[in-house]
């Protein structure tokens, strides 16, 4: 499960970088740096400008990956809590 969560995390880096490049191109260096430091800003900016920049599919993919990552993390956390510990 952690490997799958890691893979989803790695995959979500791709849409993040695509939107980040758009952010640098459209808004300049300062907004781009803010986008690196705070990915949530990049995500919000991406959705607000999804139609005008034609990146709706990228944003949908990023959102799906975020939800998948969150679900996997919750599943992993709950399975870690319910798995009985082996006592020697």
């Amino acid at each position: 499960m952690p490997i799958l969560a890691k893979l989803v995390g790695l995959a979500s880096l791709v849409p993040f970088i695509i939107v980040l490049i758009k952010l640098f191109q459209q808004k300049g260096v300062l907004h781009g740096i803010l986008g690196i430091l705070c990915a949530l800003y990049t995500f919000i900016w991406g959705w607000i400008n999804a139609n005008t920049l034609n990146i709706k599919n990228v944003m949908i993919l990023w959102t799906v990956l975020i939800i998948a990552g969150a679900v996997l993390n919750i599943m992993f956390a709950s399975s870690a809590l319910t798995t009985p510990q082996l006592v020697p």
Partner: protein
Amino acid sequence: MNRVLFASLLGDRKMATAICGAALLHLGCTAAGHFGWSCPILSASGVPCPGCGLSRATLALLRGEVRHALTLHAFAPVLLGALTLLFAAAVLGPEARQRLSEIIRKIEMRTRITAWMLLALLAYWTLRLALDGRQFIALVT
């Protein structure tokens, strides 16, 4: 480099509302112990980004645990201040919002404060990773 960043966010009601809403949702999820927004840099590389730990630090600050908040992330008061201004921009009327945005624009133009803050945040992150990276990673993950 464009000097104005925060004023442009304050002047855009849609953006200010979206950032505030997302931040409140994320802080709420973190406070409730659920999984909120996961940082793509941290989840992909295992290395926290410069903003990692800020949510928990801000929550600690809101609970009045100043020392704990500053241990988690020294920029928590800055984020709290920025969120307060964004919340004001989201709820204010158009004229008041423009006035607020104009005040911040003048401050940014005169002092370049936002650019300096971002640079300071990068320097703070680099220092934390260089001086005690393992503890920093353990603290924010």
